[in-house]
């Protein structure tokens, strides 16, 4: 019903570069907005504007109803920021880092300690709390950084590429934490280069590239927006792949993608399925598997930006293949 984050026509230039070129973003209260884009798309710049760290050259934005430029102090009372690089003081311990934030936010010594300890507990850092953070692993630092942004119990949380550089295990852990936060009613703006991450966590996605939003919607809507479905044909014998590709190209009129074991192409009309089956039959190709499915976000991204997204972490490729089966 209401929008915790509302941005219209944000423009930010750095010299010649237009980091933001008229970006509109809205996040419904209590949901996750995924901002998806490749390197240099303008994700961090957008987050910095919404976190009152940068003034936009044009456009305006409100967070919780407050203007990020004119009412930055009020905005800061609502937000938590977990930047792209963990901003923890490496010379202090985990407890000291969190207590410092607590004190800044007006907690007294004992309260600050209690808050720090409960957050460390929640992020499974209790044992490491007394250690200097320079001894922490990357994943631990990320968690501490996230904890630091939660000390003030923000209602709007920015997570700028929270899982970049984490191994699959730490990434899953962080995803669980984010899901937990959503359960608490926090509105989250999450930027990511990983399609899978947006698919997993976001209620709405805005795809940005070169400072512009090039697509938006729910993950499902985005897949539909791409124009229907993808045909996936897996011949019984790998040697038949070129023959399959020829048939699929002839029927769909599109340039099919030949993956390791399968040929894929977008289809606009489900009658094409029958045509492909007939064509393959005529060629005498034995089909191992043949399916129509929604495109993966990878394919959405490829179609929207004309360039493939960064490699998704972990084993997304395999999941795509399983999804095809």
């Amino acid at each position, binding site marked *: 019903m209401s929008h915790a984050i509302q941005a219209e026509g944000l423009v930010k230039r750095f010299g010649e570069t237009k980091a933001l070129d008229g970006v509109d973003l809205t996040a419904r209260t209590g949901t996750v907005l995924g901002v998806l884009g490749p390197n240099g798309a303008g994700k961090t710049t957008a987050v910095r504007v919404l*976190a009152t*760290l940068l003034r936009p050259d044009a456009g305006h934005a409100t967070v919780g*109803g407050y203007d990020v430029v004119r009412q930055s*102090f009020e905005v*800061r009372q609502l937000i938590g920021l977990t930047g792209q690089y963990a901003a923890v*003081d490496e*010379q202090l311990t985990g407890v000291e880092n969190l207590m410092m934030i607590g*004190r800044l936010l007006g907690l007294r010594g004992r309260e600050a300690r209690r808050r720090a300890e409960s957050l460390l507990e929640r992020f499974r850092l209790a044992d490491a709390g007394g250690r200097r953070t320079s001894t922490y692993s990357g994943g631990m630092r990320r968690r501490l950084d996230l904890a630091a942004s939660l000390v*003030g119990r923000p209602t709007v949380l920015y997570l700028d590429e929270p899982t970049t550089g984490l191994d699959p295990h730490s990434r899953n852990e962080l995803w669980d934490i984010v899901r937990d936060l959503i359960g608490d009613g926090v509105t989250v703006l999450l930027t990511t280069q990983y399609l899978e991450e947006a698919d997993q966590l976001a209620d709405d996605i805005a795809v940005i590239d070169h400072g512009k939003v090039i697509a938006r919607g729910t993950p499902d809507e985005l897949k539909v927006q791409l124009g229907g479905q993808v045909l996936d044909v897996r011949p019984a014998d790998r040697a038949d792949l070129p023959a399959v590709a020829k048939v699929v190209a002839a029927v769909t009129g599109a340039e099919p993608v030949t993956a390791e074991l399968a040929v894929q192409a977008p289809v606009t009309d489900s009658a094409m399925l029958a045509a492909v089956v007939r064509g393959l039959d005529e060629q005498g190709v034995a089909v191992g598997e043949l399916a129509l499915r929604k495109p993966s976000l990878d394919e959405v991204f490829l179609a929207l930006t004309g360039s493939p997204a960064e490699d998704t972490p972990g084993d997304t490729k395999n999941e795509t293949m399983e999804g095809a089966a």
Partner: protein
Amino acid sequence: MSAVTTAAVPAPRLGFGASLRHGLTLTRRSLLKIKANPEEVIGLTIQPIMFVALFVFIFGQALAGSWQEYRDFALPGIIVQTVVFATMGTGLSLNSDIEKGIFDRFRSLPIARSAPLVGAVLGDLVRYTLSVLVITVIGVVIGFRLESLPGTVAAVALILVFAFALCWMSALVGLMARSIMGVQMFAMTLMFPLTFGSSIFVAADKMPSWLRPVIEVNPITHLTDAVRSLIAGGFPVSHIVTTLVWSAVFFAVFFPLAVWRYKRRT
């Protein structure tokens, strides 16, 4: 958006008390860092200690007739040099906070904007004091005599006043430089001539005549001569006044510039 949240509420201004509290919290952070890395303060003093050893024990005889005499001449200057070099730490720590994103975290919090700067500078004053103490103690151990205690206290106070003024230049450099390396480069190219072109190691009247005018305007010369005389029980009015004037000039120039730069960055 509900009407309640969009209603025009006066922006809550942070009072002086709150701003001070935020500044002190971040001073505490600087102190925690000193506690976590005592070797950093020691490290700051290692170079001067090497200077003491080199100049006093090796060149001492040649420069002043005996190493004891040179010790008494050079030690006050070495204290000054230590603190002047230590002011560069302010720029380094600000720069590293910006680079690491720690500043962004502070700036995303509803706290006084001045707090990170205040915290860095106040914490550094403590660091300067500690390094003065370390060198003085070493001096006393090798036989340096603090003739006048009140004079010594006044000398330390004068050094700290000058350091406080100078650290804003360092802060400005730290806020402008793109990297830690840049800050260090600047520090080296500025600090070396400033300290060697002074009366720290050799009295002005023993320097080549073309260099003398430079040495005589150099604020570090005045500070060093003032400190020497104060510790020995004198009251060198002209050196003290000149040092205070220079401090005021540094402060008047670099404090506003650093704050302007800081606000622009924030």
